């Protein structure tokens, strides 16, 4: 008896969720709001891992919910809405990280001499981590000089003195680094550099 009741109850719950999914597929804004209210905390928590400030976090939540809305015609009624939202969030986050990686490469190339790595304004460790990953691909010598220059903020002359090498060498290494990073940037979608 009790178990039957539970079955009915869970059936009812499933029905409500099915209804929600169906109205969402019809483009019902109310349904979208219900989804938002139900999952905004999770989305926010997720966003906060990738960005530090609230305004960017809000952007991410906004984008994911909209992505769900734009994909509403492709939503399946066989799978739970939550699972499909997670899938959308995953592909969004992958794009997001790739984009951040490209941004950081652009920044590091454009900057002349800047303490990007220590800049506390930046979106916390994600960006810093991506920057480190970008620098990791450089050859050892090149990497060391590039780090001193971009992360520690040493001038080319200071680096030359510190390492007892000529300024010309420092210059060469830095332009070599910029060249390698530029190549990375131009690679369309392949961001795996583990070769």
């Amino acid at each position: 008896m009790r178990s039957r009741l539970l079955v009915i109850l869970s059936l009812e719950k499933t029905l409500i969720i099915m209804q929600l999914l169906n109205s969402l597929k019809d483009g019902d804004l109310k349904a979208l709001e219900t989804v938002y209210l139900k999952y905004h905390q999770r989305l926010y928590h997720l966003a906060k891992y990738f960005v530090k400030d609230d305004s960017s976090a809000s952007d991410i939540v906004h984008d994911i919910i909209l992505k769900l809305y734009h994909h509403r015609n492709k939503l399946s009624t066989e799978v739970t809405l939550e699972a499909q939202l997670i899938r959308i969030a995953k592909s969004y986050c992958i794009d997001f990280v790739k984009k951040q990686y490209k941004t950081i490469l652009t920044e590091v190339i454009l900057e002349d001499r800047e303490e990007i790595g220590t800049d506390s304004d930046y979106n916390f460790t994600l960006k810093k981590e991506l920057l480190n990953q970008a620098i990791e691909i450089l050859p050892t010598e090149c990497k060391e000089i590039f780090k001193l220059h971009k992360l520690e903020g040493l001038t080319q002359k200071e680096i030359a003195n510190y390492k007892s090498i000529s300024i010309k060498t420092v210059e060469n290494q830095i332009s070599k680094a910029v060249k390698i990073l530029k190549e990375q940037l131009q690679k369309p979608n392949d961001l795996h550099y583990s070769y």
Partner: protein
Amino acid sequence: MKKSGSNKVSLLNEEFIEGKVEQLWHEESGVGMPLPLKETTWKRIKRTVQKNHLRTLYRIAAMVVAILGISGILLFRQNQVITTVVVNDGITPKSIDLRDGSTVILNRNSEISFTTDNDRAVSLKGEGYFKIKKDSLHPFKVLTDSLAVMVYGTEFNVYAYPKDQEVSVSLYTGKVHILETNGITLNMSPGEKYSKDFSRNQTYISEFNKKIQVDWMTSKIICVEMQMSELLKKISNYYDVDFELAEKSIADKFISGTFKIDNGIEHFLNIISFSHDIEYTQIDQKTYRLNQKEK
């Protein structure tokens, strides 16, 4: 030398990100979303959705008219147009990937919009740096209120804040064509900057400093002997504020230095008030008044 990359691939690895998302999703969230943010975010979502609906409605209406005149074939193809509006009202530049593989880095207080029926066109209000994917068959168009930029694959910066009397396009690589609203077209070569001053209705082509033009992308304004009026214009666009000058002479001062945009407007005002003996008062939320300090 081959490097063993066991732990350093992590962040760019798709599986890692997917796993992270999964983990975060099921994690107990420590800090909840602040209530005002929850509300504004929803309002933004609603606005974007409604904008799209409106657009779809316009489309449908236009189609109905078209049906009467011509044929109905187009109807089913085009009534699903979605407009995406990306507004950057934050304090850092925002990078946007377009569907054709091009990238736009959008400055503060700027917006772009594009539709699903044309991958190769965007409308811009404000400033953006464009990296356009090559496609010799389909030119990419950037539309502003006063001109259109047509390109095949290149990198360039467009400056077109609505309240500014000046529009400029700075070309980094490749080739672009400029179409002015009066029908005049111009070709540009890399390293050239096209600017149009609407207050004088004059067009200039000049060379530009590649780094300074896009200083905004790195959250900085670099000034080399820049006229104060010029700098104030940039600042007022980036922070969406206005300046009132008590003395005209302030506009003619020159300034050199680097400002960090992220540090906020007060920081900027403090520096110039110190270096150029200027006092500032905030009149209302969006207006500052500058006057010369009395000696």
